[in-house]
């Protein structure tokens, strides 16, 4: 028997200033599933996350939520960048917990437990968030999203800006939440480094879901090998061209109409052939492994 979806979007369309950012997206999130949503910058990932969280008034289409029993449906949301506020982490988390209705007695304990779990460096109370490093800020971002034990956790580029150790810590926390049955949607412009936590992978391009695969890949500690292909695209080809090509891990538009593609090594020949066939000029090909940052 299939479980009733926790959140269902039906023909969800969102238009900003006449531009369709989401195009008739229909999607049902099952309770407890972990979804990795990939797509190039500007493909509609963040808008889809906000639509799932009920933060965006849809231009057309609908969002339906299955209420979890007596209590209200709780959504945790971590934006891609938490602003640098003039509050310490404890002050910030304390305010967010109080706003969410957490009792004063349990609030402190909950915050301390979460802070300990993320292994933040000592002395965080001496600094306000506007003095934090990107990694520390991202950890606070994840903590605020987890504060109320959400039914649905929406994370926009949660590993961005984190060093390898911090990424591993975040992945460990996500795996724990997954084991507790939290529904997680994780948007990323590249596949998460250790992607065995995903039950389902969605790819979005130009506001449409272009791939929806279920089933996790086997866990692997092997660092992915990739090739960085730099090319000049033919006239008229947009920055999303080939972004969803099989094996493409990440894309980045460069100056002068050039593009960089990070592609899995085993798919690089196919991408090169396709690029050449489309009239692109290949400028360079470099090999690498592990993360594609930089």
């Amino acid at each position: 028997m299939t479980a009733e979806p926790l959140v269902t979007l039906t023909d969800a369309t969102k238009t900003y200033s006449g531009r369709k950012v989401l195009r008739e997206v229909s999607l049902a999130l099952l309770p407890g599933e972990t979804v990795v949503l990939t797509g190039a910058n500007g493909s509609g990932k963040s808008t889809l996350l906000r639509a799932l969280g009920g933060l965006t008034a849809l231009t057309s289409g609908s969002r339906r939520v299955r209420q979890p029993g007596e209590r209200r449906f709780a959504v945790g949301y971590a934006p891609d960048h938490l602003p640098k506020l003039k509050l310490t982490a404890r002050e910030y988390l304390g305010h967010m917990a109080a706003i969410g209705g957490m009792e004063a007695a349990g609030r402190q304990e909950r915050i301390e437990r979460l802070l300990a779990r993320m292994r933040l460096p000592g002395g965080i109370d001496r600094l306000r968030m506007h003095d934090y490093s990107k990694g520390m800020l991202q950890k606070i971002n994840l903590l605020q999203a987890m504060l109320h034990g959400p039914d649905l956790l929406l994370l926009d580029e949660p590993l961005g800006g984190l060093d390898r150790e911090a990424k591993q810590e975040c992945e460990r926390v996500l795996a724990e939440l997954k084991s507790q049955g939290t529904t997680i949607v994780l948007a990323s412009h590249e596949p998460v480094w250790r992607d065995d936590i995903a039950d389902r992978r969605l790819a979005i391009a130009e506001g449409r879901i272009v791939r929806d695969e279920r089933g996790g890949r086997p866990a692997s500690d092997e660092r992915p090998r990739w090739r960085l292909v730099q090319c000049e695209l033919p006239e008229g080809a947009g920055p999303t061209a080939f972004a969803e090509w099989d094996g493409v891990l990440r894309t980045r538009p460069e100056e002068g109409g050039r593009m960089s593609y990070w592609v899995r090594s085993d798919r690089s020949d196919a991408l090169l052939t396709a690029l050449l066939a489309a009239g692109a000029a290949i400028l360079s090909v470099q090999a690498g492994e592990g993360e594609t940052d930089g």
Partner: protein
Amino acid sequence: MILPLIRYMLVSYSRSYRYLPPLLAFVVAIGFVYSNVPNPIMESYAFSSTLLFIVSAWLTFGFMDAEPIAQQRVTVLHARSLTAYYVAKLLLLSGFGSALGLFATLYPALLRKFDRSPSLLELGAALLAHGVLVLLGIGCAAFFTEKSVPGRPFALAGLAIVVILSVAGKGLANALPDAVAPAAWLLPPAFRVMDALIRSETVGGWGIALSLAVAALYAILLMALFVRLMSRKQF
């Protein structure tokens, strides 16, 4: 949920120092006006309440977008209510503006800056006039946020036009041909409160009360419309 929201907004806003320019402008202007004594009571209150209308619009303009949009989304999800979020913002601004109104009412009365001691009725009317014009200033400026008007310069220009029309509405109403004169009732009625206070001896207590009631109703309708629009618009 509203109180924790107000506490959070108050702490964040107080550390942004965005309130300083309008606050200083108001305090300095009041100090300057009352540096010469004696002053006529209700005319002075008409000036300070109109000034407070402009200052509360200025405070609102700076406050509404003080919280970055990404954090607004996070705060709203914690609060689980856009309506509560905006009501908290309006309440905080109203409280801050009312404190300035209390200062503008009591400062000249307690430090004997008037030509005589104001009666309790005059003090009450002045306090209400300051409070109502605070609400009206907030109601007018709330619509000129980043979410409603794309581009800060356009928003600022729009707000400046509305504030000028609200203060100088009497002249505009007089200049309008008879056929379209009722259109002046659409203007935010700050000028009606100012006029009633200046002509307090002619219009009497009921005249002042009526102008205050009209302005209060106008302000409350503006705020209710703002909260409704923002709740529907979301992000």
